[in-house]
């Protein structure tokens, strides 16, 4: 008997009631229930077994299918959440399409919870079986959506996160493209002098990463490259790029976003003038070729961050300030350095120790309150000190502002191309902060580094690897199967659809698009099957496979029907 199912009207349902030892059989008369099932319309075979999920139970199902050439199977036992895959596998082996199977829960949601009311439990079980059979009659064969995967990875952004992700992916054997907007890799790292907490030379890290990136066999680096447009979906992306003038299209399976973040333009912040009032980032190159001669240095933390315009902490500026202060102190110990801070973020073991070292070196830390910002005068800073209850005047001939990292201005454009969301500060928004930090809701796109949230180098590298491994879960298959129970706009409903695009707006996975001849199209590969679009479609044109209106209505009618 081949896979093709029987004719539509010739529905032949088989019902299998499970005793589950005494968990069900102990409370209700399973035999009676099986006989009752036999009387239901469309049921040609019903039986009860001690343990349907056992080997004997499964073989019983397979033989029953063959003997009575059943084209629908209903199993009444425990919960589908654990056993549905098992029974689908079983019916499929018997040549029946796995979706022509329906599960009725008469244990966890019936016998186990109505132990003192056997009669009520039996009545409930009977109704549930009746509803299960009614839905079974309306089931249609579905096939898993096979999706061939282009086993090529793409990493956008050649900063430390991007390089690590690309290295990781290419080392796993996947052909990987690494594209970078600027002329050379390294991103923000090129600008830094030393890296906390071990004061390793930034250029050393960069060169190591770049050298690795340039020689492994299946990694192709494309610098000064811009993305024009991205089409397609998981496993089948086509990314149009331009590299100084000539356009190319890369065919890739997954995309890792590692575009990092950018510096806040300090104009108008505490009288910034670029000469003796500069930012930490402008200080780094000066330290490198040690042009710093200043005697009194003042640093102001949280300059332009943790206010209502940018209500977040960039997590790297405190450590950067300490690092630079220590380097200066080392060069000429008698420079007076005072750091005005609101809260000093040095989490973890090494960072806290770094802070302690700075204190020992005599760097003065003065706390200021958020609504009494220090104000910068000609060559002194006036700051209110809570402890002494009055303003302190700290002279400076060099003032360094620890400004925050902000989201790239072009994040929105990339987000639109990838059809992924950005949060209120325009950083990229991951699928779930705890459970899926490196995924996007839209399948096939992953995220790492300060493109998601400002993080330091170690965290960036870690997130790079995480994104790479998440991507490899897809790239490692030639084809992947996506659950068949997705939403669908069938041909026979095409003239019903008015094109109002409400389904597009209500689908969080951007699985519904308008194709070029302006018709609504559902990308089943991206659809998770939640069915919200089906319940929302104004002209009731969208069908939710395996949970169609018809099927659910038949369950209601079976229960409520007189």
């Amino acid at each position, binding site marked *: 008997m081949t896979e093709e199912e029987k004719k539509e009207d010739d529905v032949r349902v088989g019902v299998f009631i499970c005793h589950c030892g005494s968990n069900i059989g102990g409370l209700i008369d399973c035999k009676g229930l099986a006989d009752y099932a036999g009387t239901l319309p469309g049921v040609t075979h019903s039986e009860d077994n001690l343990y349907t999920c056992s080997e004997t139970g499964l073989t019983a199902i397979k033989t029953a299918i063959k003997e009575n050439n059943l084209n629908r199977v209903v199993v009444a036992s425990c*919960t589908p959440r654990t056993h549905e895959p098992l029974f689908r596998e079983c019916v499929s082996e018997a040549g029946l399409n796995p979706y022509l199977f329906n599960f009725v829960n008469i244990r966890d949601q019936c016998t186990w*919870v*109505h132990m003192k009311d056997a009669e009520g439990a039996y009545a409930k079980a009977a109704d549930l079986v009746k509803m299960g059979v009614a839905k079974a009659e309306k089931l249609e064969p579905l096939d898993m959506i096979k999706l061939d995967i282009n086993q090529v990875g793409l990493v956008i952004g050649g900063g430390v996160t991007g390089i690590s992700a690309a290295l990781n992916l290419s080392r796993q054997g996947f052909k990987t493209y690494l594209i970078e907007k600027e002329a050379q890799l390294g991103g923000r790292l090129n600008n830094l002098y030393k890296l906390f907490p071990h004061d390793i030379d930034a250029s050393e890290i960069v060169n190591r990463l770049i050298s690795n990136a340039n020689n492994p066999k299946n990694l192709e680096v494309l610098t000064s490259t811009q993305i024009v447009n991205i089409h397609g979906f998981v496993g089948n992306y086509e990314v149009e790029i331009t590299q100084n003038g000539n356009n190319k299209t890369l065919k890739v399976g997954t995309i890792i976003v590692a575009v990092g973040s950018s510096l806040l333009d300090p104009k108008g912040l505490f009288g910034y003038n670029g000469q003796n009032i500069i930012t930490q980032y402008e200080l780094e190159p000066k330290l490198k070729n040690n042009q710093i001669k200043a005697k009194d240095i003042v640093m102001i933390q949280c300059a332009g961050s943790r206010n209502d315009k940018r209500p977040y902490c960039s997590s790297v500026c405190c450590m950067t300030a300490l690092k630079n202060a220590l380097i200066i102190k080392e060069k000429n110990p008698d420079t007076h350095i005072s750091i005005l801070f609101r809260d000093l973020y040095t989490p973890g073991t090494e960072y806290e120790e770094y802070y302690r070292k700075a204190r020992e070196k005599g760097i003065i830390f003065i706390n200021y309150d958020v609504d009494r910002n220090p104000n910068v005068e000609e060559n002194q800073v006036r700051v209110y000190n809570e402890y002494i209850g009055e303003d302190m005047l700290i002279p400076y001939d060099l003032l360094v502002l620890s400004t925050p990292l902000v989201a790239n201005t072009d994040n929105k454009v990339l987000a639109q191309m990838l059809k992924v969301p950005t949060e209120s500060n325009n950083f990229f928004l991951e699928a779930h902060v705890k459970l899926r930090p490196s995924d996007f809701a839209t399948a096939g796109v992953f995220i790492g580094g300060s493109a998601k949230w400002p993080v330091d180098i170690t965290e960036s590298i870690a997130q790079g690897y995480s994104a790479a491994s998440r991507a490899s879960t897809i790239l490692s298959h030639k084809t992947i199967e996506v659950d068949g129970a997705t939403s669908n706009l069938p041909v026979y409903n095409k003239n019903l659809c008015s094109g109002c695009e409400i389904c597009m707006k*209500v689908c969080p996975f951007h699985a519904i698009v308008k194709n070029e001849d302006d018709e609504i199209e559902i990308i089943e590969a991206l659809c998770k099957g939640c069915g919200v679009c089906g319940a*929302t479609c104004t002209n009731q044109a969208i069908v939710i496979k395996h949970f169609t209106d018809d099927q*659910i209505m038949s369950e209601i009618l079976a*229960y409520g029907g007189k």
Partner: protein
Amino acid sequence: MSFEPKLLGFLCNWCSYAGADLAGVSRIQYPPNMRVIRVMCSGRIDPKFIVQALELGIDGVYVMGCHIGDCHYLEGNYEAVKKYEMTREFLKLVGLDNRIRLDWVSASEGVRFGEVVSKFVNDIKELGPSPLSGDSPDKDLINKVRAIRLAAGSNRMRALVGRERKITEEDNVYGEKYPLEKYKEIMSQAIIEEYERHRILIALEDESKSVKSLASELSVDPSIILEHILTLKGRAQVDFQEIIKNTPIYMRRE
């Protein structure tokens, strides 16, 4: 013997269904009156499912989903709330609104699942059997509930409820948040209008009638009936048939 309510529950697969299973595993006992239909997400519940159940005489319908923010599909339960609120406002027109309920039960709240189901069974017991249950429920009420089901499924209502959340909580096409109370006003106005219009369509199914006879049958002011007849004529669902003694008679057209 005492009244045993017939209840129907729609449980979302990832949270409330799992909660129900957990109640089973923990052997929490609760009354057996509720039959469960599993759906992938509470957002899948179409208002017509709920109203169809009540129309068949089921005494109560319970819709359960994940807590806000937990939804496996991110925003499914947000949509469920809006559809539930609309259904409730429709059912208020026939006094059946207290027979439906919406609640969030997470996969770890086995105990709570038992409690809420028991409470629902008791509340419905107190309320008594649905006026539509029994073997000869009053025909007028059946037509009213059927009108509600058709109205809730109408193109206009599905558009309004489909866009409500995004427009009032995020932004509409002009980039502004539309004030919620104003949207609710539009919704309530639309609900009443579509309800009355579909009652007219049902009343015209068996025979053509005049505005005045429809007004008395539906106990709605004749001038409002006239306005509805005009709109239905615009939608080519109703048409003018003839004039008998100065009174135009309208017929159903499909």
